[in-house]
């Protein structure tokens, strides 16, 4: 079975400082990993994904994430936080060994990011 953990319910960071939102995963096969962002009363927006290749993935709005196989982590990062980055962030995983064509994602519980002016 696949699972995702986002250990922090909330992350507070000052505007202009670097931010990190943590994610760890568990799969039996190889992982496909994703980050999504959700603004209040809106659907989830795709930020970035890791499928294969370079461990450092760059995505939308200046975000990036690093795939670390040994630590089974996929932390989301941004060098300089903006107030507009304040939102709910979800990490998700798909185990390439499961799903039988369903392409199901398992989502973490979400981390609320607050960027303080």
């Amino acid at each position: 079975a696949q699972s995702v953990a986002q250990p922090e319910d909330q992350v507070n960071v000052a505007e202009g400082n670097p931010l990190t939102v943590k994610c760890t995963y568990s799969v039996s096969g190889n992982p496909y990993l994703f980050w999504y962002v959700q603004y209040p009363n809106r659907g989830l927006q795709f930020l970035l994904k890791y499928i294969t290749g370079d461990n450092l993935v760059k995505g939308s709005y200046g975000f990036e994430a690093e795939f670390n196989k040994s630590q089974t982590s996929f932390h989301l990062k941004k060098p300089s936080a903006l107030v507009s980055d304040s939102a709910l962030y979800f990490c998700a995983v798909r185990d390439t060994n499961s799903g039988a064509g369903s392409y199901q994602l398992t989502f973490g519980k979400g981390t609320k990011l607050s960027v303080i002016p």
Partner: protein
Amino acid sequence: SQTIHQWPATLVQPVGSPLSLECTVEGTSNPNLYWYRQAAGRGLQLLFYSVGIGQISSEVPQNLSASRPQDRQFILSSKKLLLSDSGFYLCAWVLIDGSNEQFFGPGTRLTVL
């Protein structure tokens, strides 16, 4: 480009009333479709997914049902709503071409009173 629509955007229904939420996708063919529920603005619970017309898989036993009458239409229904059905319902699709990411609709906020 592909777009996904959900309606209604908000809905307030009394306990025991029926429900029908609709999701349609434009600009793609034969997508996988998903219904999620999000309670209290946090985690997503997968309710149903569909890999094709008339093919529905249920992930969580409940008083909800789903149908896919057309390739790009996915409907979430209930005959009698419960208070616990309140939440934010999200529809998503993925194109099985290797891109893998799911794309989400704007959501429907359901309040059961």
